[in-house]
């Protein structure tokens, strides 16, 4: 069968089971948009290519399947750089196809030419510049393979226009030949056995669970491990939902804005069983003072994470799910099997004491009647049906989202962790809803973030993607305001945004959304209930929240995790 390169691309995407692509056409990608008309693949026309990239990420994070975006060359390719960097940081499998100028023009500064593979080299797992149409099926197969296996991540295929138009003989590769790419899946049995023994000997163990547990679909295995060992779990920002918040052994989020118990239990632990987490600086605080008494078991599919920040006593390279399953077996075998597990009751009692003394706290009934953002998120969480997906932007609202939402399922928290990309929420939520139309999808967004990617609500309205946005309008770039208040003597520099410029309700309505404004605590629940009823178009609920509210607890940048600032409701430092 003779096909053009463009037809071969679309057919290759179909072969990969692609059901939806997010994109926006232009000159260099024009040939690809023609066969798209005849394909069963759904195309979602975004309003900015950054939106396409984040939608692909939201789709992938909600479904554990690769998200696909197609954009043109030059400015479109550079517009999608941020999502690629974001996906690289958070190990999100996306496949981005960019148009490129004709091979005969490459290197000549042709119209809309950018060195896309060069620009994206350090923010993709791998990228390809297609030189001949006959390479297309092979490269697409390789691209999906690389994106979705090992440590997942973004890949990019740059497709010159003349290659799209070139004829080729269709084939589909039966195998993938990448001699330099063979991820280690199975943990070394001896290390696993040693880890099992160490777990049984630990008196103050903590399961330090990261986003890798979600990516490797290890949440069931993790549940079984906890059931067997009774070890408490902390879930990092990327791992919220990997272990249910409703489980008594779930301690919630550690790190800079984690809760006191999650932070302190890691800090006082004698064994951190690290599963698909990477000792990010937002988790460890000052590394030299992090969990000083803890031995480390570190399981990750990416060997480069082992020993990168903190030396592991037992490093295990492998797929987290498989390693946990092996670990569960190893606990009953050999030397570990003969060992009786230490009694954890004193440790758990200590943890309960911290939880009682230092819970997350905010002012419930402020005398001035202001609306507290934490109250909004808490109410939202309690009124959302089980399994609701929450997407988030970046800032204070993100931290409140992570702290006050009850996560009980994996793939229900869609946020930008590693890169901290403002504006992620709206396109992230749209992608998630496209991938999981059966689920309700809310986004918690900030006013700053909203203004960065709001245009995608037009996409959502026209494509009938009924996402719901809880806009926490505090009239500020709140997170930056918080730092200026706390660390720059309340000298506020360029953080004020205004509560009513723009008029979010009018703006949302103009974009085809239902829009509601909430100014007082009594209005919160009714507005959410009303939004929950709407299922045929996007909804924006603007909550006018207290500008002065800060995120606590907080471990200041550069401090160790022994210095948790619990905020004014606890009378300051501990």
């Amino acid at each position, binding site marked *: 069968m003779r096909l053009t390169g463009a037809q071969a691309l679309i057919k290759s995407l179909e072969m990969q089971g692609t059901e939806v692509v997010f994109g926006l056409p232009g000159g260099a990608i024009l040939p690809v948009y023609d066969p798209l008309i005849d394909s069963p693949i759904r195309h979602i026309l975004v309003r900015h290519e950054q939106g396409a990239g984040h939608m692909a990420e939201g789709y992938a994070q909600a479904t554990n399947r690769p998200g696909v975006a197609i954009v043109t060359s030059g400015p479109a390719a550079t517009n999608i750089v941020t999502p690629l960097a974001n996906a690289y940081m958070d190990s999100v499998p996306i496949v981005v196809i960019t148009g490129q100028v004709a091979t005969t023009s490459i290197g000549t500064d042709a119209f809309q030419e950018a060195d896309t593979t060069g620009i994206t080299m350090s923010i993709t797992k791998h990228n390809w*510049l297609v030189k001949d149409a006959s390479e297309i099926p092979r490269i697409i197969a390789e691209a999906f393979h690389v994106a979705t296996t090992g440590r997942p991540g973004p890949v990019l295929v740059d497709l010159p226009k003349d290659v799209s138009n070139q004829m080729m003989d269709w084939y589909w590769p039966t195998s993938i030949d990448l001699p*330099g790419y063979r991820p280690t899946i199975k943990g070394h049995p001896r290390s696993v056995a040693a880890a099992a023994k160490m777990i049984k000997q630990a008196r103050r163990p903590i399961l330090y669970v990261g986003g890798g547990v979600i990516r490797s679909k290890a949440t069931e295995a993790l549940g079984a491990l906890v059931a067997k060992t009774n070890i408490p779990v902390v879930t990092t920002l990327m791992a919220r939902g990997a272990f249910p918040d409703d489980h008594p052994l779930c301690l919630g989020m550690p790190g800079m804005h984690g809760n006191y118990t999650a932070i302190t239990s890691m800090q006082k632990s004698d064994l951190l069983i690290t599963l698909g987490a990477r000792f990010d600086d937002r988790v460890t605080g000052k590394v030299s003072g992090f969990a000083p008494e803890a031995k480390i078991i570190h399981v990750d599919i990416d060997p480069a994470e082992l*020993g990168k920040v903190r030396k592991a006593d037992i490093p295990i390279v492998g797929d987290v799910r498989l390693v946990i399953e092996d670990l569960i077996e190893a606990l009953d075998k050999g030397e570990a099997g003969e060992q009786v597990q230490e009694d954890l009751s004193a440790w758990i009692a200590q943890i309960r004491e911290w939880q009682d003394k230092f819970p997350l706290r905010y002012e419930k009934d402020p005398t001035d009647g202001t609306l507290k953002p934490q109250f909004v998120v808490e109410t939202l969480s309690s009124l959302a049906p089980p399994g609701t997906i929450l997407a988030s932007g970046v800032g204070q609202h993100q931290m409140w989202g992570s702290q006050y939402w009850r996560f009980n399922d994996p793939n229900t928290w869609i946020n930008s962790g590693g890169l901290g990309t403002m504006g992620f929420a709206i396109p992230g939520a749209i992608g998630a809803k496209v991938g999981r139309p059966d689920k309700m999808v809310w986004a918690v967004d900030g006013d700053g973030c909203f203004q960065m990617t709001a245009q995608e609500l037009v996409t959502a309205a026209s494509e009938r993607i009924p996402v719901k946005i809880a806009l926490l309008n505090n009239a500020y770039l709140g997170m930056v305001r918080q730092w200026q208040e706390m660390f720059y003597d309340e000298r506020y520099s360029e953080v004020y945004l205004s509560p009513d410029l723009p008029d979010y309700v009018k703006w949302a309505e103009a974009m085809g959304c239902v829009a509601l404004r909430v100014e007082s605590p009594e209005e919160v629940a009714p507005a959410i209930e009303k939004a929950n009823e709407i299922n045929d178009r996007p909804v924006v609920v603007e909550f006018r929240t207290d500008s002065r509210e800060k995120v606590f607890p907080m471990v200041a940048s550069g401090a160790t995790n022994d210095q948790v600032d619990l905020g004014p409701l606890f009378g300051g430092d501990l």
Partner: protein
Amino acid sequence: MTSFGTSVIPMSMPGGKNTSGVSHHVLSVLVENKAGVLARVAQLFSRRGYNIYSLAVAPTDDENFSRLTVVVDLESATLEQITKQLHKLINVIKITEINPLEAVQQELLLAIVSTDAQSRSQILELADIFGAKVLDVGLERLTLALADSPEKLDDFTELIKGFGIVEIQRTGRVALAKLSRSGSRSGITKGKAS
């Protein structure tokens, strides 16, 4: 970069520094011989904050593969991190760390030295002692070539400096593990990936 056509690509010049310094490690990296591979390797080093001291690249006996001999400056990171990060590149097939003490290393030096009637014979004598070749002769200049261990090249450079070096160029070293006395090869495994 479109191919590994040239036999050796110097990345950074030793500039008189001792090339056998203990902080340097030699990595022999087998890569797919594909467009852009050198750029990926070089970019990885700069992005992770590692310093490449010298780099030599050429296709192996199987032209689907190339071998990079990278001398890394170890003050910037641990060798283990560098190696692991390099391994993450899809086109990198195999990395072997070569301990300089257990390796044979060679590097090529080209130098233009200024001469006069009087110094010419002294220079030629030096060249003879070191086994350097005279590649080109001008009225007041000589072009010399020396292929030897990096240390020998350092020594030679030191000695010809006195006569006036007009220009000097080094390639960066290539290295192979020393043969084991008991007969079988140690260190580098050859060519193709398993």
